[in-house]
């Protein structure tokens, strides 16, 4: 970093390798390098301890044994910094698709019982390491075990205290909206409000006819069913008729939502602007999977959602509620992470047998490397979606053994998320809202002096 306090000229980044040197001077680039430099400075040992570590390593080489590790001693380490702040400016968590996949390194396939129990173990671990959100998918075909989301989420609710329970996604196309209204209002009550949902359409063709629907109606189903779901939660007695479901006359969905406030809803879509439009129309959240495709797709969808959110009068574009997925695998040394994850990546459902790990890492948001690399990459998401409210990581998939997933969650919760919390919070302007929670929605409702029924009258 080149500073010139005397001239007052802006800072410049100086890079050098074997054959070239270069200078970076755009504000965004300088900012990222400054941040990285500061983080590394924070993590580094002081000169005396550095000397001690080097001497130990030398001795170990001489003695052909492993050197004892000296813990970092600076006042702010990646392990500790920010872990007690818990300001919750932004929510961090994990999402699972609930697949039963053989471990390609051992050939072993977990039983359905093992996989379901592992979801619970993973959720409890998420709370233990200080994450905010656990979201699970919904599927109605093998190799998945998550056909009944509120059963597992309800069980997890009973064993946790703070964790927000969510979905990734709830199939608004093929699930009866009446059943969604009932199930998730029930979950709200037993979980004391720690519930929200993410709506998705589902892209498994045969699931639609199994539930009496047609995949070509995906968007109209999402539009009609969600409109009915909103009314079921907001109006005590509903008369309704539509294209896809038997009509309702004098129907009351029970239990009524906790405190009269329905769960917050996110809408997830990889590439359908109509779904971003739906989220914007209602002032709901928009979540981008942000795993399978290049970040440019995410950016287009989020920009569109933010613009339409403002168009519909819910606030300025930068106040729209945005969530992102992400996928990481971490070890202390990035080469170890790559070596361990590669056999899982190479045959992973969805993207295996295609681009190499290196290609996929450069083309999509996947990061396989050190915790520091994950921090850097994740902070970079903000550069193309703006300040956002929720970051979920996919951690348990492709046959990774439970033990490994739990280790990953330790690293995520202890080394990565505390730094992300601090850094994102420092960057976020005051007028950008936090991620909505049951408490914040109740408070907003009370402050506005409106009732859910009054809101229903306008929508």
């Amino acid at each position: 970093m080149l500073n010139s306090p005397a001239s007052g000229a802006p800072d410049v980044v100086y890079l050098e390798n074997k054959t070239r040197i270069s200078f970076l001077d755009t504000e965004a680039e300088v900012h990222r390098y400054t941040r990285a430099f500061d983080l590394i400075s924070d993590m580094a040992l002081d000169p005396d301890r550095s000397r001690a570590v080097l001497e130990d390593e030398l001795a170990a080489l001489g003695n052909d044994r492993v050197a004892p590790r000296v813990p970092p001693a600076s006042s702010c380490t990646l392990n500790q910094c920010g872990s007690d702040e818990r300001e919750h400016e932004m929510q961090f968590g994990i999402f699972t698709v609930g697949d039963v996949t053989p471990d390609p390194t051992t050939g072993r396939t977990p039983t359905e019982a093992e996989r379901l129990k592992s979801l619970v173990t993973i959720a409890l671990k998420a709370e233990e390491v200080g994450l905010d959100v656990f979201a699970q998918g919904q599927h109605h075909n093998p190799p998945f075990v998550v056909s009944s989301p509120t059963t597992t989420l309800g069980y997890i609710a009973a064993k946790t205290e703070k964790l927000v329970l969510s979905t990734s996604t709830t199939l608004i196309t093929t699930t009866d909206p009446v059943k969604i209204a009932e199930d998730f209002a029930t979950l709200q009550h037993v979980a004391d409000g720690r519930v929200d949902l993410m709506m998705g359409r589902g892209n498994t063709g045969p699931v639609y006819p199994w539930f009496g629907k047609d995949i070509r109606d995906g968007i109209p189903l999402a539009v009609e069913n969600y409109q009915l779901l909103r009314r079921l939660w907001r109006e005590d007695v509903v008369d309704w008729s539509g294209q896809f479901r038997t009509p309702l006359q004098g129907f009351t969905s029970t239990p009524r939502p906790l405190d009269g406030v329905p769960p917050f809803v996110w809408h997830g879509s990889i590439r359908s602007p109509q779904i971003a439009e739906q989220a914007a129309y209602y002032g709901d959240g928009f979540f981008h999977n942000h795993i399978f495709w290049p970040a440019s797709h995410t950016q287009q969808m989020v920009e569109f959602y933010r613009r339409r959110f403002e168009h519909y009068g819910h606030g300025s574009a930068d106040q729209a509620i945005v969530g992102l997925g992400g996928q990481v695998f971490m070890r202390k040394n990035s080469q170890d992470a790559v070596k361990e994850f590669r056999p899982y990546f190479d045959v992973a459902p969805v993207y295996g047998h295609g681009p190499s790990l290196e290609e996929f890492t450069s083309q999509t948001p996947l990061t396989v490397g050190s915790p520091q690399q994950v921090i850097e990459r994740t902070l970079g998401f903000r550069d193309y979606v703006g300040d956002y409210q929720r970051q979920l990581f996919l951690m348990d998939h492709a046959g990774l053994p439970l033990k490994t997933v739990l280790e990953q969650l330790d690293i995520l919760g202890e080394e990565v998320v505390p730094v992300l919390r601090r850094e994102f919070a420092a960057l976020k302007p005051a007028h950008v809202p936090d991620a909505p929670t049951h408490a914040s929605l109740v408070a907003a409702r009370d402050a506005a002096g409106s009732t859910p029924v009054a809101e229903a009258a306008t929508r």
Partner: protein
Amino acid sequence: MTTRTIAVVSAGLSNPSSTRLLADRLATATVAALRARGEDATVEVVELREHARDLADDLTSGFANESLQAAIDAVVGADAVIAVTPVFSASYSGLFKTFFDVLDQDALIGTPVLLGATAGTARHSLALEYAMRPLFAYLRAVPVPTGVFAAGEDWAGGGSTALADRVDRAAGELADSLTGRPAATRPADPFADPTTSFEELLTGR
């Protein structure tokens, strides 16, 4: 003077390839035919061999990498397409088909296309008509009436101008289909503000 963009898609595998040779002749003849009609043209060639792995990756990952996306953009944004494939196992090659498989279904609607194919012998020549033409009909592109097939013997020459005549006739048909047309417009931006309001979506089923 209007400048047209012509995208050439060549699925030849060897280098040099007779498929590319035919593609180049079709492109040169088309540019000449457009000049004769008072229009200029730029030609962009997409060699599918260079994107063989990109295409396989797109099939498994569901998205085009940067290099393939540039090729797709060149073809989708062109005023006309010259598509040339070797005949393998009685049809267009798998590589050729894969490229058109990863395009959006609507990407070539209304685009004039000149069809070309190569093979060792003339026995494969009807592959142009029973395999290639239906593919572009499905895509709702507009293939010109003359497709150009070149067998090994066509390159022998021997004083015959048969191949050159077919090339010129097909190029003239492609040029005719372009003159008087407005320049190609990019596909509609899916992220433009919707023309249908969400209220209409809710009520106007």
